[in-house]
């Protein structure tokens, strides 16, 4: 009763509701801009929170985060450009659905899955904050190394027709990740004395180049003005039967998102790719994946939206930000004199309750806000192809420049765009390269840290039970993928003979 009165007072007596709604709209817009990550979108509003009440400020920032994680899927589906790193996995089937004239369905599924993921993450945040944080604390460098290897094991089943080409793409991705300052010794690697390269190549630049620019290059000179099929400007929200079908991939996404949110560094990308792969593995229609599968959109969207809430668990309990966005939120807490940890719950319980209530409002408001914004987005992609290509190109250039204010970034993205075009022509898959860029640093730095801890004794990886669990699971995944590929190849050759 007391809590109900507190919540009612917050809803009607504070700026909590407007903050949640404004934050959500801002987040969706920022997330939909390629190059503006969720953390940058949050950082842009941070200065405006100085004069706000602590609870209003924290709710605003958390709502921006929720909105940005959802917004990232809009350009991923409509123009093959992930708005955020974690939306890269949504591109695979989301864009395929758009090409099939099912963009409205893809956006509806992404919206629904985002709501499911956010709600699940919020429930986990409220219920499991303290016990689950203890699990994150149990992670050692060996565990993170093994987690990276587990993520890499997905490559085997994401390589399309040729595992060799998938491995080559992953190796090139890992090579790109070695550019910049070596995290352990501090020496420069492949920076060519360019200061702009000291910080390395951001994964979002690789993704924008490979997915968006290469697509523009591929489509160049395609259908003439007016001859392109128009896509329906109507959001198709999943019906009950579809919701039932999506429940399994969403469950996988929620589970993966919950685990990744607890661990620093991932930011939702690993969970999105991992859940995509697992959704395919456990699907009764795995052949649809990569060709416009509804489950292929639902799983990663549920995952990255779960991360938006679950990454707050270690933040609130121990002050450990699980992602860049959580780090910005930590900044927001500190600006208002709020110290994360057990004392936050004791001394500023109202702020925490307000955060829960505000996040719930933002989560539920995703549906009406999404339904209002999405038709506008779809109207935009129905413009004549020549103009659309020009606007997408300018959007990409503007977003990329905003990352560091550097022309070199534009050159890098253009180079990756051309590389992507060559990969398309040669039949090399993009996703292993993206995984290599995202997971390469995690694998390398934690491998070397582990060896430093053990005095170069590799048996340390077998002494950590979490690492052993991940490594064994990775081996099972690879073996299963190879077995399934051989089985599929045998089935194809049998079909040919018949």
């Amino acid at each position, binding site marked *: 009763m007391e809590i109900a009165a507190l919540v009612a007072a917050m809803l009607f007596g504070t700026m909590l509701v407007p903050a949640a709604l404004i934050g959500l709209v801002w987040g969706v817009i920022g997330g939909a801009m390629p190059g503006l990550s969720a953390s940058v979108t949050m950082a842009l509003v941070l200065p405006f929170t100085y004069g706000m009440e602590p609870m209003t400020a924290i709710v605003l920032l958390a709502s921006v985060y929720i909105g940005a994680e959802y917004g990232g899927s809009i350009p991923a589906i409509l123009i093959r450009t992930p708005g955020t790193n974690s939306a890269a996995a949504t591109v695979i089937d989301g864009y395929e659905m758009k090409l099939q004239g099912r963009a409205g369905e893809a956006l509806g599924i992404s919206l629904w899955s985002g709501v499911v993921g956010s709600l699940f993450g919020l429930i986990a945040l409220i219920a499991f904050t303290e016990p689950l944080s203890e699990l994150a604390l149990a992670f050692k460098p060996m565990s993170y190394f093994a987690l990276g290897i587990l993520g890499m094991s997905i490559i085997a089943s994401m390589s399309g027709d040729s595992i060799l080409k998938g491995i080559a793409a992953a190796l090139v991705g890992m*090579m790109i990740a070695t550019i910049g300052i070596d995290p*352990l010794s501090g020496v420069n690697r492949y920076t060519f004395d360019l200061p702009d390269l000291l910080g390395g190549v951001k994964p979002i630049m690789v993704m924008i180049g490979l997915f968006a620019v290469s697509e523009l*290059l591929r489509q160049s000179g395609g259908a003439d003005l007016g001859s392109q099929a128009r896509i329906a400007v109507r959001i198709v929200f999943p019906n009950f039967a579809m919701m039932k079908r999506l429940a399994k991939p969403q469950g996988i996404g929620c589970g993966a998102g919950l685990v990744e949110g607890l661990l620093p560094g991932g930011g939702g990308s690993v969970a999105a790719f991992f859940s995509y792969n697992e959704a395919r593995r456990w699907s009764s229609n795995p052949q649809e994946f990569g060709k416009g599968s509804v489950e292929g959109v639902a799983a990663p969207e549920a995952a990255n939206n779960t991360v938006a809430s679950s990454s707050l668990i270690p933040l609130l309990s121990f002050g450990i930000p699980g992602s860049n966005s959580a780090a910005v939120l930590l900044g927001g807490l500190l600006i208002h004199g709020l110290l994360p940890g057990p004392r936050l719950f004791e001394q500023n319980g109202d702020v925490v309750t307000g955060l829960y209530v505000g996040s719930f409002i933002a989560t539920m408001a995703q549906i009406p806000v999404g339904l209002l914004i999405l038709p506008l987005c779809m109207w935009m992609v129905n413009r004549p192809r020549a103009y659309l290509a*020009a606007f997408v190109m*300018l959007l990409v250039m503007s977003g990329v*420049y905003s990352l560091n204010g550097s*022309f070199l970034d534009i050159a890098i993205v253009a180079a990756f765009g051309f590389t992507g075009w060559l990969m398309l022509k040669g039949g090399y898959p993009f996703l292993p390269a993206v995984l290599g860029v995202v997971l390469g640093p995690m694998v390398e730095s934690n491998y*070397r840290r582990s060896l430093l801890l053990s005095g170069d004794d590799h048996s340390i990886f077998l002494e950590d039970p979490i690492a052993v669990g991940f490594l064994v699971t990775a081996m099972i995944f690879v073996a299963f993928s190879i077995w399934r590929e051989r089985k599929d190849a045998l089935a194809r050759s049998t079909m040919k003979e018949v």
Partner: protein
Amino acid sequence: MNAHTRRDITGGLALCALALAYLWGATLIPQSTLSDEVGARGLPFALGFLLALVGAAIAGKAWLSRTAAHREERGEGQASLRRALGLLACIALYVLVAWLVGYIIASAVLLLAVSLYEGAPLNLRTFGVAGAGAIVFWLIFVKFLNVEQPIGKLLAGS
């Protein structure tokens, strides 16, 4: 040898060349006294050798499974390459104009260049779309989002 096989052989050899260049780059990474046993060069060397092996395997596999010659569609491939390079030239033009005169004019130039390159008619509407689009982008990124965009060398002092 068909186009697919030749592409795989070329791709495999290109990967080998990339691996060799990367390995050469690895030898230039300085050694640090703070370095651990694996060192800053450890992973680059491993990745370079692995990529060379995989590249050779892709090329070798394609060579072994080569089939009789087919009619090539080389002209189509070259046209596609020319289109892609043309669009990359539009990006280079944008960078040059942005560096010189800043974001808003560069945006208009990019919108106009890409629209025309992609087949839009050379008329007032196309110019209008480019101009209006540039202003909208400037308002969104510079004024509304307050995101840094190129000022332009010529306008920086004014």
